[in-house]
């Protein structure tokens, strides 16, 4: 039954954007991404990014034109981006890491939030001066930005943030990286095909995505073979609230594909929901697994968790030592997972169904020490 649901879901995704007509150009079929559409024309590629908070509206239309050819005459309305980019500014570590993997690292001229970037290569380049640190992502150093004169800015849009401030007036194309609003793991990863086209590495990006997709689906198939569906909860209490990933969140889809029963799957939020301790406890006390991610210099242990908040010890997963932690202080969770959902899925399957992947050793998670 579940297999059927999954296959219907996958098929329905595939049929979504298959229409091709002359005026539309050649549609590049995107099977999973819901907020993105791309059309190839003779001398440009048209990319539309949907508004993630109002899917009936287009957030931005980009026209990717070859920077070595004269500008085509009959361009429709949209932001012209001359590709491949040579001097881009990238705001987030995840996109830097993708661009590096696609072999276009030298096209990164500047970054924001350098101190949060868990990428040695970027830090080295910043020391050498080949990458400029532009500071805070919400208010970048505008003078350095002007001095650098990048050919595009890659940044993430936020709801009701009132635009991107002064950088909008520079006349530099702003690429809205709304991939984080995709709700499915493959949907988000598929955005790499757009980014690949920006950096002139379309084939490489397409083949990397095809590879990720193939691996992800193979792993999901393996997970479907499991006879049991262990229950899972995640995260920890911060202050009075326990921020629980919603039932339509990206992470919830991961749990489903890994053959687990996420206890908040019926929730309808795609982001996180602040719940009280007792709500989580009431539903999750008997959960088989508990996954947490945190950023600390020393790894969390069962004893530390109990000291932090004694009622944690009331969960079955705590008593049976089934808590797995990911310390993002040194594990590239945020940098790797968006474009390598297959690697993350593999970890999850190993945790939920260890017998299905006997060879795999965990990459992101570790079982907490006593």
């Amino acid at each position: 039954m579940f297999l059927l649901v999954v296959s219907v879901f996958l098929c329905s995704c595939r049929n979504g954007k298959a229409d091709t007509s002359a005026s539309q150009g050649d549609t590049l079929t995107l099977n999973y991404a819901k907020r993105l559409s791309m059309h190839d024309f003779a001398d440009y590629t048209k990319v539309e990014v949907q508004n993630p908070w109002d899917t009936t509206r287009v957030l931005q239309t980009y026209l990717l034109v070859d920077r070595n050819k004269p500008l085509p005459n009959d361009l429709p309305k949209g932001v012209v981006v001359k590709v491949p980019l040579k001097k881009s500014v990238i705001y987030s570590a995840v996109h830097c890491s993708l661009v590096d993997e696609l072999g276009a690292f030298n096209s990164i001229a500047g970054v924001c939030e350098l101190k949060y970037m868990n990428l040695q290569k970027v830090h080295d380049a910043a020391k050498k001066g080949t990458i400029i640190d532009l500071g805070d992502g919400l208010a970048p150093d505008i003078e350095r930005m002007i001095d650098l004169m990048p050919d595009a800015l890659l940044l993430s849009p936020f709801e009701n943030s009132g635009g991107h401030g002064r950088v909008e007036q520079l006349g530099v194309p702003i690429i809205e990286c709304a991939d984080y609003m995709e709700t499915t793991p493959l949907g988000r990863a598929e955005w790499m095909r757009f980014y690949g086209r920006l950096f002139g590495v379309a084939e490489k990006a397409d083949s990397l995505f095809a590879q990720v997709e193939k691996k992800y689906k193979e792993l999901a198939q393996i997970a479907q073979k499991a006879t049991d569906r262990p229950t899972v909860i995640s995260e920890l209490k911060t202050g009075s609230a326990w921020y629980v990933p919603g039932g339509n969140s990206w992470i919830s889809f991961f749990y489903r594909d890994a053959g687990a029963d996420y206890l908040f799957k019926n929730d309808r939020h795609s982001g996180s929901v602040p719940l009280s301790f007792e709500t989580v406890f009431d539903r999750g006390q008997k959960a088989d697994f508990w996954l947490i991610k945190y950023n600390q210099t020393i790894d969390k242990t069962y004893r530390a968790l109990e000291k932090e908040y004694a009622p944690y010890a009331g969960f079955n997963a705590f008593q049976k030592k089934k808590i797995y932690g990911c310390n993002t202080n040194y594990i590239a969770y945020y940098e790797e997972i968006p474009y390598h959902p297959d690697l993350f899925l593999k970890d999850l399957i190993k945790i939920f169904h260890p017998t299905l992947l006997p060879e795999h050793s965990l990459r992101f998670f570790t079982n907490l020490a006593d």
Partner: protein
Amino acid sequence: MPASKGAKYGFFLVITIGVLFAANLAFGSIKIPLGAVIDTLIGGTVEKESWRFIILESRLPQALTALFCGSALAVSGLMLQTVFNNPLAGPSILGINTGASLGVALVMLLLGGSITVGTYSFSTFLSVLVGAFAGAMAVLALILFFSSLLKSNLMVLIIGIMIGYVTSSAISLLNFFATAEGVHSYMIWGMGNFGGVSNDQLPFFVGSVAVGLILSVLLIKPLNALLLGHRYAENLGINIHKIRNILLLTVGLLTAVTTAFCGPIAFIGLAVPHMARLMLGTSNHNSLLPVTLLMGGVIALTCNLICILPGENGVIPLNAVTPFIGAPVIIYVIVNQRKIQYFN
């Protein structure tokens, strides 16, 4: 006859606290039948084991924390208002809260939440507590220093506000250089929370707050003397400097403990003493201090109940609730300053 009026209100407040405390145990984000709550408390058998756990491990410590935290903040507010002879003094206004926050920020952000000494690591909460106490005492010491230089209490209040600003800017700077998670957890802590004290920390929390509260009750007489003005108090044979130091140390203890465990909670310390004065119509600490103490518990328990109003769908942060109760009282007091008896 203020004493008997105080006793009457005191009795009424104790009953209210009982009712609110029971309500705090009976109601929460999830629905637990009243019968099960009673069974849990008298040690009977409960249908669902998780209910017993929620009531005993989450609701009970939270209600106790709210009760003691509310009393502690209200009493600190009252003592500060008397010491500085200023109706707008309070732990948050004078920057004592912010001082404690800076201590906590230093611990949380710079040390990653815990101090490691060899193989032993202090638990997070202990280092947070030490940080809060050090911060609160540092600010209090500064205020004390300035209050010995400056004659005017208003000026001391302004100095307190300025110290608060400087401390906040230090906190922003720390936040700027911290990790995203560190900033997040600090921000959440700043929203206030009565649920952070678990059963094994409770004896320590309740114990240290109780010490502070007992000290404050013992200080009723000198507090009344201070009301008459410093010169009168000195004529009554009271060593003003010594008394003021003891009072501020008590305030420091109460504020640091509550801030460390519950975060900087706004407005309770400022508003509750005024509520008590409005009720009693007197500034005599014989009745004012006990009534303030009880009233603080009532208000905190009420706020805690409001926080869980969304039910299963979530929780409201505490500091989003307290100003709704506190701010109108302060505005009322300021607007009606001339008419209110205790100002004259």
